């Protein structure tokens, strides 16, 4: 056991791997070569079609103990990962690790295969019931939660070697070119899959929409694809992209958005060259609308909107408010439709988006970003991984990457969620270190990190409701009462990896 710099107890090793405790967001330097894979030579010019999923697994040479991956651009509509694991089981293959870019609620179907020993490790974060069961100690499967940038880093550095990547390919030809723009399972950007396509030892494109050669525009090229498999369906299109993402109508959410917009105005960043990222939550979109108004009024020509892209950002691009969009993942149909049509709607890989170990990722070029939170502590540390019962329920996404990269990371959250105080003495789990968070905005006030005294002074001058974060905590506690800490056993069931690979926190089994 060692304490990391945030005072979290980190074991020396986990699931056989030695751990490096987190120190700070910036100083860890890589000492590695880029991971390598065997160069292949394919001399035939015919089809790479091998048949269905089972044929592809056999062709890929998947064996006991190997690691597979999928991408999560089909999100909760994905059926590939479930189908894949079912076939792996049917072939009698065991002890497989999953290193997908994310695992969703729909993948609760994997639970029996974890119990059966088909799946024995998760080299990726999880959303939903799998994490809950692991937290309760009812499912034994070590899990390592990584951010989008951290996952790209882990694959690129060879820390997580993927033996076979099975990549959902919404529009694919028989020689392995594919994109995400068209077809019944269109998901738009394939930003996460790009990393696997470049680094997995074997790459299988799995499609439900085989088109005549060539599938253009080429998102992932034939040169990195070993096999093509055909399936009836990759998933449920209704759950792949939501048809609309909406601004909140909740008065508390709207109040938070108004305050967040004041913070953005006070920052002075809204001028020509402005860059901005939000999530898809109703509050984030309400902030985006304020920002759009600010840009219109000031006749501002922004630089780019980044991250996961929604129709709101497409509108801002088409209105000329941004030069470009950098899109790692499309969140709604409007974004999917736009990326296939707009030259300035640029697909980006997860590595380009957020990998800390390269010559500069896109998050480094962000001015302002809106982030969410499950809990925030008085040191501005943020938790998005564990929920009120202490269970691991959410993946990190790009949270800590964006916070580290953006000049100003603004965390928005209601002060209270069903009696739970959101600002508190200590977070259950640290996802994102407070050192990288600029401002916390709740409907009960705005707390500014001490490292931004000028922003704080400007907000006070604007008569914004600025409060010390401890004062904000006390006001919230006065309404909710002081929560009793959740009790955990000593057993570590999961790791929260910081984007650089050091361990910022662990998930312990909840005492029942």
């Amino acid at each position: 056991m060692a304490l990391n710099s945030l005072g979290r107890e980190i074991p020396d090793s986990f699931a056989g791997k030695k751990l490096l405790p987190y120190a700070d967001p910036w100083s860890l330097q890589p000492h590695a070569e880029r991971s390598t894979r065997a160069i292949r030579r394919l001399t035939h010019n015919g089809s790479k079609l091998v048949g269905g999923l089972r044929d592809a697994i056999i062709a890929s040479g998947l064996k006991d103990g190997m690691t597979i991956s999928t991408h999560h651009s089909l999100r909760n509509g994905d059926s590939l990962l479930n189908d894949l694991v079912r076939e792996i089981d049917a072939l009698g293959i065991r002890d497989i690790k999953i290193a997908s870019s994310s695992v969703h609620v729909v993948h609760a179907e994997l639970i029996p295969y974890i119990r059966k020993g088909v799946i024995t490790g998760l080299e990726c974060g999880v959303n939903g019931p799998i994490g809950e069961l692991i937290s309760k100690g009812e499912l034994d499967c070590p899990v390592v939660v990584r951010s989008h940038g951290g996952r790209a880093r882990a694959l690129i550095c060879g820390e997580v070697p993927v033996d076979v990547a099975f990549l959902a390919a919404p529009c694919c030809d028989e020689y392995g070119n594919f994109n995400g723009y068209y077809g019944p399972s269109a998901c738009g950007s394939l930003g996460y899959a790009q990393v696997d396509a470049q680094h997995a030892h074997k790459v299988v494109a799995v499609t439900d929409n085989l088109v005549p050669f060539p599938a253009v525009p080429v998102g992932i090229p034939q040169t990195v694809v070993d096999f093509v498999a055909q399936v009836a369906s990759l998933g449920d299109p209704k759950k792949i992209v939501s048809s609309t993402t909406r601004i909140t109508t909740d008065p508390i959410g709207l109040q938070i958005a108004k305050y967040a917009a004041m913070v953005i105005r006070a920052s002075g960043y809204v001028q020509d060259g402005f860059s901005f990222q939000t999530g898809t939550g109703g509050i984030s979109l309400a902030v985006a609308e304020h920002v759009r108004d600010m840009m219109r009024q000031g006749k501002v020509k922004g630089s780019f909107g980044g991250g996961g892209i929604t129709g709101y950002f497409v509108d801002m691009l088409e209105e000329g408010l941004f030069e470009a969009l950098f899109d790692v993942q499309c969140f709604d149909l409007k974004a999917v439709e736009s990326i296939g049509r707009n030259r300035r709607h640029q697909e980006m890989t997860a590595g380009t988006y957020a990998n800390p170990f390269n010559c500069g990722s896109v998050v480094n070029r962000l001015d302002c970003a809106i982030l969410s939170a499950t809990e925030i502590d008085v040191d501005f540390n943020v938790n998005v991984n564990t929920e009120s019962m202490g269970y691991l329920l959410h993946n990190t996404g790009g949270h800590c990457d964006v916070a580290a990269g953006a000049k100003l990371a603004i965390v928005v959250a209601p002060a209270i969620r069903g009696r739970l105080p959101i600002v508190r003495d200590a977070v259950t789990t640290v996802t994102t270190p407070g050192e990288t968070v600029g401002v916390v905005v709740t409907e009960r006030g705005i707390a500014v990190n001490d490292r931004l005294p000028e922003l704080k002074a400007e907000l006070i001058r604007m008569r914004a409701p600025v409060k010390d974060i401890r004062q904000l905590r006390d006001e919230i506690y006065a309404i909710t009462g002081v929560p009793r800490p959740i009790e955990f056993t000593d057993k570590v069931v999961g790791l929260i990896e910081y984007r650089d690979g050091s361990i910022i926190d662990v998930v312990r089994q909840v005492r029942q």
Partner: protein
Amino acid sequence: MKIQRKGQAGTMQSSDLMVIVEPADGLVIEIESTVKKQFEHLIRARLEQVLAKHGAEGARISVNDRGALDYAIEARLETALRRAGGLS
């Protein structure tokens, strides 16, 4: 204060609670809550405070809490007690 019949108040909406009061021997409090681990002690304390204030006895109090704040707990319990004939 005697509980004469079953009384119920509240909803299962987030940030609300459902309270059911029934005649029983002694005074029994049962709490289910979405925030049980962090707040059961405070929910129980507030329930006991309200019950004591009205001298309620001979009742089973079943609470299904969805993260309600103290004032909601107080209001729902008082209403349930009234409906159970335990309050005049």
